[in-house]
């Protein structure tokens, strides 16, 4: 693997773990789940139920949509 590929993929993987760790930390550390956080969670569940959560271009099959231009 080329160095730049390695860096891009490592950054992407770290970004994913960072986001997930924030979600987990919210759950573990919070003494109380705020009203806003409750509303956000329910909104995400509603988006799954309605299908809106799957509307982005990343949800098209790879054969249907060209990937974004890589820098």
């Amino acid at each position, binding site marked *: 693997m080329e160095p730049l*590929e390695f860096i*891009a*993929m*490592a950054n*992407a*993987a*770290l*970004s*994913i*773990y960072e*986001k*997930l760790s924030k*979600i*987990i930390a919210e*759950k*573990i550390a*919070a*003494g*109380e*789940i*705020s*009203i806003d956080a*409750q*509303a956000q*969670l*329910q909104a*995400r*569940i509603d988006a*799954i*139920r309605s*299908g809106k*959560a*799957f509307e*982005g*271009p*990343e*949800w*098209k*099959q*790879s*054969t249907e949509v060209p*990937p*974004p*231009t*890589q820098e």
Partner: protein
Amino acid sequence: MKRNIVYTILLAFCLSLIACTSTKLAPGGVYQGDTVLYDIDYSIDMPSAFLHLFVKWEYDNRALLAKKPEITKAADEIRKNAPKWEQTAVAMRDAYKRNPTDDNKSALEASLAVLRQATLEAAKYINDNSQ
């Protein structure tokens, strides 16, 4: 390789931790103090978020991943199935909310297990290609 195993174990641990962590809900929220329902939604949201991040990661890095067609193939499988998996879990959640029987609980747990397994598969691809 060791780091792959560590990441996968860590993810599995985190997913299992979700179900074990006690929740305190601020009064006045949409869950109206129903911590069981909140925890169920959280158990759906967490693996779903990971699957969404995985397909976004593959989409954003598709050119770089051209030499790894198996990753794009795996992402396409998730694109095909994740809506069904996630919406099934939400439907089972709704059924359990309406009628909290043992059968509905088992169906809900089965749908959550499918989501968690898909998450671990996606994590494997990310780990294997970030070393």
